[in-house]
């Protein structure tokens, strides 16, 4: 066991190195900058490349380009930069180019409060880019989980040929904890599938059995076309072919949704006999874990479902875990972005208690406890 005291952002950089990152492009922004600083030192040591680009859009564009040569790539940002990157995230979805985007959330909108914590970008992660699409978003609640989920973000990205978003919040990004680096040595590092056919037979977007298409790196003899326009299996535009458009957009969705069970990562604490279930993610899940432990000590049967994968929405899991519960509490540092989704699942069968906080402070366990005991009124 190798225990090391580490900051969340540092664990993110180390997780990326563990996953085999080759390339980072980014732009300085609080509270994510440590990730860039660490990788500017670590990447060239491992023969990889680091570049500080002229802006946020250039950064995401550069990592998509680098990924096309076969590299594993990463960028890190915060709210304002995440907004700027959205168009190109859509490009990576459409062209099926793997890459990982870290958003260490700060309080918004606009410049907001750069050093204060927030979970305000949950819906931006889901719906930030235009058009119908599906995206994988992971959300760690501890420094150790940052390390683990950064590795998983790369694995999902490579496995499904899609951009993956890792949503930290300022609390988790700047939290320092001792973590066991060897604990995750058993995770198999995944790499994108290369084509097994010869270049003359290669159709860059032809798939078998719903699996993502094999990806040829630029420069290895497979000369093909990549475009953000709708395209058919050959990779060329098919704007006049509505059946091909329909097939493409549904495939991009299904290649992820079909593996929802594999993608949905979560932790649970005393959920089975719980009367009251807290569903939480990120730093709020940390507070929820404390609240559940304290409530249990008081004899209240509380449990925690901590979602590490927040998108695609794990509807079945939430439905099953909520079944028969008296109340479902959803603490989050926004005005109920995720609670709204959970409400659709619960319908009106279970009492949903959204617990919101948007003052830039970490949501405290006592607030969750007060809501459960009815001491604090919820909206």
């Amino acid at each position, binding site marked *: 066991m190798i225990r090391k005291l580490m900051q969340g952002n540092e664990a993110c950089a180390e997780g990326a190195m563990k996953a085999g990152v080759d390339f980072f492009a980014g732009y300085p922004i609080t509270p994510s900058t440590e990730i860039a600083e660490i990788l500017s030192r670590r990447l060239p040591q491992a*023969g990889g490349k680091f570049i500080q680009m002229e802006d946020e859009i250039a950064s995401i*564009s*550069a990592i998509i380009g680098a990924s096309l040569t076969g590299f594993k790539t990463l960028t890190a940002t915060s709210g304002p930069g995440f907004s700027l990157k959205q168009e190109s995230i859509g490009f990576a979805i459409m062209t099926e180019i793997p890459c990982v985007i870290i958003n260490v959330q700060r309080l918004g909108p606009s410049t907001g409060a750069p050093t204060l914590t927030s979970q305000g970008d949950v819906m931006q992660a889901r719906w930030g880019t235009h058009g119908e699409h599906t995206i994988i978003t992971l959300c760690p609640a501890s420094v150790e989980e940052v390390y683990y989920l950064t590795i998983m973000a790369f694995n999902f990205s490579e496995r499904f040929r899609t951009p993956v978003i890792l949503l930290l919040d300022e609390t988790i990004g700047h939290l320092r904890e001792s973590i066991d680096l060897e604990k995750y040595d058993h995770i198999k590092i995944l790499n994108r599938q290369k084509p097994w056919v010869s270049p003359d037979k290669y159709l860059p977007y032809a798939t078998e059995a719903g699996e993502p298409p094999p990806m040829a790196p630029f420069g290895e003899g497979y000369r093909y076309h990549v*475009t953000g326009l709708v395209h058919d299996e050959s990779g060329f535009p098919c704007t006049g072919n509505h059946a091909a458009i329909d097939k493409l957009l549904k495939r991009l969705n299904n290649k992820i949704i079909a593996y929802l069970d594999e993608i949905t990562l979560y932790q649970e604490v005393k959920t089975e006999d719980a009367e009251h279930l807290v569903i939480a993610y990120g730093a709020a899940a940390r507070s929820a874990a404390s609240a559940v432990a304290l409530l249990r000590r008081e004899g209240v049967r509380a449990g925690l479902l901590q979602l590490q994968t927040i998108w695609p929405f794990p509807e079945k899991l939430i439905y099953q875990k909520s079944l028969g519960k008296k109340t479902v509490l959803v603490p989050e540092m926004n005005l109920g972005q995720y609670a709204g989704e959970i409400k659709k699942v619960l319908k009106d069968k279970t009492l949903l208690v959204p617990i919101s906080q948007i003052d830039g402070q970490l949501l405290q366990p006592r607030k969750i406890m007060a809501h459960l005991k009815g001491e604090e009124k919820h909206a």
Partner: protein
Amino acid sequence: MPKLFNVKKYLRMDKMPHIWCPGCGNGMVMSAFLRAVDTLQLNPDKVVVISGIGCSSRITGYLDFNTLHTTHGRPLAFATGIKLANPALEVIVITGDGDATAIGGNHFLHTCRRNVNITLIVINNRIYGMTGGQYSPLTPKGENAATAPYGNIEPELDMCKVAEAAGATLVARGGTSQPVLLEDLIIKAIENRGFSLVEVLSQCPVYYGRLNKKGNVVEMLKWQKENTVSVKDVNKLAPGALKGKVLTGVLAAHYRPEYTEEYEKIIKIAQGK
């Protein structure tokens, strides 16, 4: 005369006919580019051509290389990622004046400054063609556009001067009226170990030409020929004869360290070698 060669071996003939309007300059630039590729005997497997958004950016669909049709204004940023990741690839960006200098202006400045070994060919038709003839940063002052019905009040940008000032190591301007010169400039740009810009004066008879009563393609090309002067001939001209003329040829050539080569040194330092 441009040299004769089998242009089809570099084209995706099954993607023809192309989408460009009759008289458009894009095909002439594509032809000059492919002659340059043939002269240099580049290995198509190692050539990456990247474009942005717009009429000219549709060029990547027709070229049988590794081709990437990116988002609007960002091809140089994608290109920087590709070149830094794999410096062995020959990276060429072909795009339009709006893509390169308006929405992509920031990337243009900084790719010049870094001196990444990328060749940028900007097809300057002085207008946004794909969206129907709106003014671009290269539309001359006083000219008409779909969004300048009373005349354009913005002065045009000299992208070659900007490129040189920002640090590009080879800056050239050619035009569709001089295809042999254009081919030669593209060859020099690809050969330069650093960032190269080739601005190509081109014609859009359908929008720019029609909105400004510039006549047909032949007249537009004649106008271009009569209003350009080779940098080599500048000393021979009578005083005042340069007024209103646009210079063509290699406008600037400098030596500066190339970005990806500099980064290789960083890797050696980081690894303690």
